[in-house]
């Protein structure tokens, strides 16, 4: 039997979104029989990768707790949607990278957690490349140079 996990299914087949697009998705816990979910956290977020410390910001966040008073059944598929912001756009830089994803964190009994991610791109910024090895400036222009 497979390990318990959370399936995240984006409604759109394409993984690239534009600023202002609506991202909608469904998340489902599998297999249900083995799990006693306590809470589910759904986030649409970006984080940085690269040379620097990781920065993270949440654009959409929802926490569902499985208790009798709320009447929430975490075993049922959960749908959500959010309009994506204008920035920051996904970026594949040299020492700074910005990645967007849908992250679902499932809290189980005895403090166990299961985390699933579905990455996607926001915007169409092409990957960057280092112009010079270091920051130290030289007057050598790049391929974009255009003297007046």
């Amino acid at each position, binding site marked *: 039997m497979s390990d318990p996990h*959370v*399936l*995240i299914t*984006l409604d759109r087949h394409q993984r690239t979104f*534009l*600023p*202002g*697009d609506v991202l909608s998705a469904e998340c489902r816990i599998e297999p249900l029989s083995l799990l006693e979910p306590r809470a589910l*956290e759904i*986030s649409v*977020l970006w984080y*940085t*990768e*690269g*040379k*620097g*410390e*990781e*920065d*993270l*910001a*949440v*654009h959409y*966040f929802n*926490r569902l707790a499985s208790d009798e008073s709320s009447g929430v059944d975490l075993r049922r598929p959960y749908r959500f949607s959010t309009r994506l912001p*204008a*920035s*920051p*756009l996904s*970026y594949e*830089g*040299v*020492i*700074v990278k*910005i990645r967007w994803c849908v*992250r679902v*964190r499932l809290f189980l009994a005895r*403090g166990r957690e299961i*985390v*699933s*991610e*579905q*990455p996607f791109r926001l*915007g169409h*910024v092409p990957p*960057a*490349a*280092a*112009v*010079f090895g270091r*920051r130290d*400036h030289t*007057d050598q*222009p*790049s391929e*974009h*140079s*255009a*003297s*007046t």
Partner: protein
Amino acid sequence: MASRRPGDAIGSFGRTSVLARIVRRFFGKKRGARNMRSEKLGGASLGLFFAAVFLAGCAALGVCLVQVTIPDWRAKHKFVETTCQVLEKRIVEEGSGPRYRPDFHIRYEVGGRPYQVWTYEIPKLSTNDRPASQAMLDQFEVGKQYPCWYDPFDPAQAVLAREYSLFAWLILILPGSFIALGGGGLVYTLFNWGKSAERRAAMAQRAAELDPFLGEKAVAERFPHVPGLENQTNSPGTRLSYRLPSATPSWRLIGTLLICLFWNGTVSVFLIIAAKSHADNDPEWFLTIVLVPFVLIGVWLTALVIKQLLAMTGAGPTIVEIDRHPLRPGGRYRLFFAQAGRLAFESLTVSLVCDEEAVFRQGTNVRTESRRVYTSQIARHERFVVKPEKPFEAECEFEVPRTAMHSFKSEHNTICWKLLVTGDVVQWPPLERAYSVTVYPDLHAGLQS
């Protein structure tokens, strides 16, 4: 569509061997998915640390209250007045300082029962100012009667003076700061206990939105994590709409200056010793020879400071103005730049550049690394002379690439666009001045503005 688990999605090791995986796990960068820290263990350690600081503060506060502040307050407000006779007086020396305090042997009666104690005031404060203690001592004469105050619960406790003591209350600041630090940290740790990174980030963002003093809120709402324009559009230009402020950091000069001062200051001490030995006809040749390379480094550092100072201040002001701000990908903009001073230029170049900057911890140091990912020469002028009465002026146009990444700023990572003015000056250090500009995301790429 099956999703990937983060362990696979981020920082995946692919088909690497077990050994390589272990090596990268232990010696690779300890961030993101390779972070080996246990959040619970880390949180518990932090909580224990703050609890220890809090408890230490509470214990110290208790001691201060019981030993100093409460006795001082009781002496001023609860002690009962009576009359005493001064039998003896002296100045007590304490510590290795030494510190001094006046002390009087007094006799008084409470309910018909006589008491004799050595006292002056509560708390017993000493000072390194002996004349001040002597002055206090001289206020009382042996054999004469003076008013004194005794503790009604313990008549053997008495004071001869009960002036207001600031020390008795100021001392509470020390344990109070420990309590504030430990208590605040403990509350923070408990508040974040068991919360995911996303939940903490969401809570922090909500708290930031409530901040009434948050500048550039409108920009932050419309373009999250794009720097605002406040510093770039508040100065009107003379030729074009906006004059840009210089973004050239002076920290390099300050850092070099501090190193230079420290180095030469240290070396000069030994240099004086060596020079004195030569002057006294008892030359320290070993010290003199050893000092030579250190002196040379000091001279080189001084030359470096002068060079940087000349590069920063000697070339006269550079003015850069643009017609519109913020910039947009694919947008075309007019640029005016002027260079004042008295200089002969081999060349003067204006470029549009984009730098990535990352801040990271390496051991206990915080480092910043930068990479240039775009540069485009906008204008270049060669072999000309700038005179004080006639600054060099030029106007041109430039274009931001259609696929440019927008300006970005988060806590540790930055993408910044700049207009860079660089010049080769005859018999002068090279000129380099940067002027930050902000590139907004492309509104035509689907954003409903």
